[in-house]
């Protein structure tokens, strides 16, 4: 931790604090791009208020936060409502710190790994290898990418509970690289009961901790399942009813709220023919969870952290209620793969996609909802393009990783008959 880290952290906090005082904060809190039915602060307030009034918040359709967090936050919200933005900022800075530490540890481990493997590497591949400078450099890039990404800043000042999800995910990732199995599993179980989708992260967890021993893998899985039940049980004890399961996991799985967001679900299921709904619902949920789990786990079995990054990113694209805060989180993980960047071909395209679609989204939303001069198709088009951009980014990262692996061992310039050869997947 050098002085740069503190400076950046302070600056990041200051930026968030400044914006949380402006009129932007309530505006963001109501934007569909940031606040989904799952993470919106307004619904959290409603849940706390209903708890206070003695009404079961999960009887209705507004509250989807898990009971444990709802209870914990209700204490703060009732007694210290003024400091809540400050708390969210602090939590966000914690996430940034965790990601920074994650970066440092990750590069250290990579360097160690390289020491063992460096004899096998081809000659001119120094720029593909992690070096000592990366230790601080990559961690700082991660910190920068998290602290000063407008998406995470907005998501923080809008008081969305994505801040909490990001913190939990960062904790999971950090305890992964720190090899803290139990903490990692319990946190994952907690986040799974809240948000359903993170359960896919059990794959990198098993790959990392089981080290190819099947009984160990099964044991980890059992620990995970047990802690899931334990968390669910704890939630039950808080509410004294199982209603919350339908209010959180059921609400996510069955996609009951068609409120527009940045994902693929909302318009698809608005326009869906009723008798196909169940089939497509299952298809889309499989696509968001287990469809890519097995092939990617096989392919990236040596890189559990990359697997985790890709899974988190795919989750952010394909989940039922995605928000821009989720996107901001996985973008901050990209600098970890800085040594793959050389092979990422669509950087500019993706950047342009993001820039244009994000600005179009706001405009089209206004035209549809307020001006009445556009219809839902416009906004849907923007979200569709945004998802496409994200998918380009993820597949690009995967391709880049595969190419880097290949070049690391075979050299960057491969000659066949005196001519430079092309690398292809076939």
């Amino acid at each position, binding site marked *: 931790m050098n002085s740069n880290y503190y400076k950046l952290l302070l600056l990041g906090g200051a930026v968030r604090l400044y914006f949380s005082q402006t009129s932007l904060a309530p505006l963001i809190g*109501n934007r*569909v791009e940031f606040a989904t039915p799952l993470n919106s602060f*307004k619904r959290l307030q*409603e849940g706390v*208020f*209903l708890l206070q*009034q003695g*009404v079961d*918040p999960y*009887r*209705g*359709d*507004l509250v989807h936060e898990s009971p444990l967090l709802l209870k914990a936050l209700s204490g703060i919200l009732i007694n210290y409502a003024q400091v809540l933005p400050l708390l969210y900022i602090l939590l966000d800075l914690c996430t940034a710190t965790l990601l920074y530490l994650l970066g440092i540890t990750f590069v250290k481990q990579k360097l160690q790994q390289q020491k063992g493997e460096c004899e096998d590497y081809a000659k001119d591949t120094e720029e593909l290898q992690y070096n000592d400078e990366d230790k601080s450099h990559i961690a700082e890039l991660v910190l920068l990418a998290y602290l000063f990404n407008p998406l995470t800043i907005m998501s923080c000042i809008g008081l969305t509970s994505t801040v909490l999800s990001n913190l939990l995910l960062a904790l999971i990732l950090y305890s992964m690289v720190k090899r803290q199995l139990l903490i990692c599993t319990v946190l994952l179980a907690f986040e799974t009961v809240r948000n359903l989708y993170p359960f896919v992260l059990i794959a990198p967890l098993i790959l990392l901790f089981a080290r190819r021993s099947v009984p160990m893998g099964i044991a980890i899985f059992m620990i995970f399942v047990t802690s899931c039940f334990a968390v669910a049980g704890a939630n039950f004890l808080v509410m004294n009813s199982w209603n919350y399961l339908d209010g959180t996991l059921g609400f996510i799985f069955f996609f*009951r*709220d*068609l*409120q527009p967001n940045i994902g*693929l679900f909302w*318009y*698809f299921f*608005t*326009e*869906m*023919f*009723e008798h196909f709904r169940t089939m*497509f619902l299952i298809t889309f949920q499989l*696509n968001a969870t287990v*469809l*890519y789990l097995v*092939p*990617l786990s096989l*392919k990236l079995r040596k890189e559990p952290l990359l697997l985790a990054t890709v899974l988190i990113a*795919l989750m952010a*694209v*394909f989940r039922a209620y995605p928000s821009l805060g989720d996107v901001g989180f996985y973008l901050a993980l990209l600098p970890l793969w800085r040594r793959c960047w050389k092979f990422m071909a669509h950087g500019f395209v993706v950047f342009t996609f993001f820039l244009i679609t994000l600005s179009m989204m706001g405009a089209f939303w206004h035209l*549809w*909802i*307020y001006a009445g001069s556009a*219809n*839902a*198709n416009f906004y*849907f088009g923007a979200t*569709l393009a945004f998802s*496409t951009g994200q*998918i380009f980014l*993820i*597949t690009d990262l*995967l391709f880049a990783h*595969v190419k880097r692996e*290949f070049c690391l061992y075979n050299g960057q310039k*491969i000659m*066949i*008959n005196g001519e*430079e*050869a*092309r*690398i*292809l*997947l*076939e």
Partner: protein
Amino acid sequence: MIAELALTLLLLLSPLALGQTQIHQFQYQTDEQFHEELVVRPLASDHVNTYFQFTTRWHGVHKNLYHTQLTPRVIAEILQTYDVKELHIGLTQGLWRYETWGYPIVEATGGAELWAWFSSPNLTDDSVNKQWMRLANVFSGILCASLNFVDNTNSIAPKHIFRPQFMASGNRSHQFVRYATLPREIVCTENLTPWKKLLPCGSASGLATLLNSGYIHNTKYHSLGVKVRTLCDSDDPSNCLVELTQTANLVYDLKLLEQSNTDFSLRRLFGMGLNGYCEMASSSKIYVQLNEQGERFQLTPTPLEEVLSTVGGHNVLFGVYDIQQQFEGPGARLFNIAWIGPKGNSKREHTSPPPLYAHRYLLGNGQKHGRIATEVTNTHYEPLPVVLMELVPWYVHAYLHTLRISSKPQHLHEYTSNELKFSLLHYAPGKQRELPTHLEIGFMLPARSSALITIEVDYLLLKWLEYPPDANHGHYIGSAVIGSQLPIGRNYTALPLEGYLFQDSFNASQTAYTLTLRTEALIVSLPTPDFSMPYNVICLACTVVALAFGPIHSVATKLIIVERQTTIPRNLLRKVVHKLTTRFSQAIHQYCCQ
């Protein structure tokens, strides 16, 4: 202050235990009685209120409950089958203007409104839900209204605002109430005709002949009502009394009726004079209000009898025409009453608003968020207890934590930051496609002040097939119901609970007058999808999924290989030429080899 408030609220909410005295008062001589009444009240700003009330009272023992003479058998059967003890149905078009017209004799909200009390020893909440839907379906057939759309997604069980009117006060745990409104319902001839068929004389004779659909549906406000109440002796459950009241409440705008002057007559209002009375009726009477707005008119013929009614310190003078008396003696004729107004320029009459009235409107713009604002005004010099019930349909999300009651003195225009505390709150959160949001709040409204009750709502995007045919017309939010207890009888015309004839409201002074008001219904425009492109959307979204699936599939399954970089030119034209020449050379090569 707090004690006073609690007391008043308690008074407001205490169950009305009246049954006992009533059943003994009832005369046993005749099994079934039918009464027809018409009340004509000139209202402010050249409006006339005509109110028809047809009451059938039937004292039958439980065993012969199907042997009805005057009561329609279908009503008797329904009461038996569905354990209904009290039923109210209103089919209304138009809006009652409380501020200028005072209170109506029978309250109703725009569209269709239905509420019922069920009571039976072995009823549960679920069985009541089922019975309620069946009941609504039956009345959908009886009245040709869309009451079949009443189901659990738009029905609630009001907790505080409705009290059973005519039910033996006993074990409250076996009493269930359900309430639903269909604000979109359009009331027309098709409802009037079956409604008239429920009358003993139908539309053949009696006051009901005046109800011609061509005239009724041209009015500014018309409301058809059906009310059924039962009372069984708590000692002898087979000793029951069934009362069916059918009401038609109409408001005419005289300016629309006759351009030149404000004279009117029964003939002008209904298209024809009265041809007689219903022979089955025990009494048929016409009541004409003579003072207040009625003072401006001269009546021909003059009423034979005048009645002064003093209710809560407020005097009302009625002229009474007994139709049976009028038609004594032989000879066919038509009976008509004419109101002749003063000639020359009539001065604008000043009307004082009633003690309590309410309005409702929407705040905010856009199709995403909004606020429902209900404004209740107390013009009385004492604080009034107010209970407000909101039924927010499932396609609108209401946020309870945003509920605010701000108040202002009546003479100010701006609401201050002064907030009223609610002393009573009942809330059942809504669920999409399943349950409406049900909110009841009670508070004390200070003297001569208004309260603005606001709650924030979100408008939901629905599935494309859930929108009604004209999606951009908007979706309705039913009216709020406001209950209170008035200490004075000004503008108060409703019948006392134990009464069943209009004349029972004469001199019926009480300590407090129970009042329920209905506000305007609201119409919200929900965001709409494009209805024309389900296929496109499905294709496009699946394409994006495939965009991810393809590359990830190839990364996971394909091997990396190294291929000689061919010297393919960049230029498109040259590319084509290159491809053709290589093909050509390959073909020649093959040919040569053979």
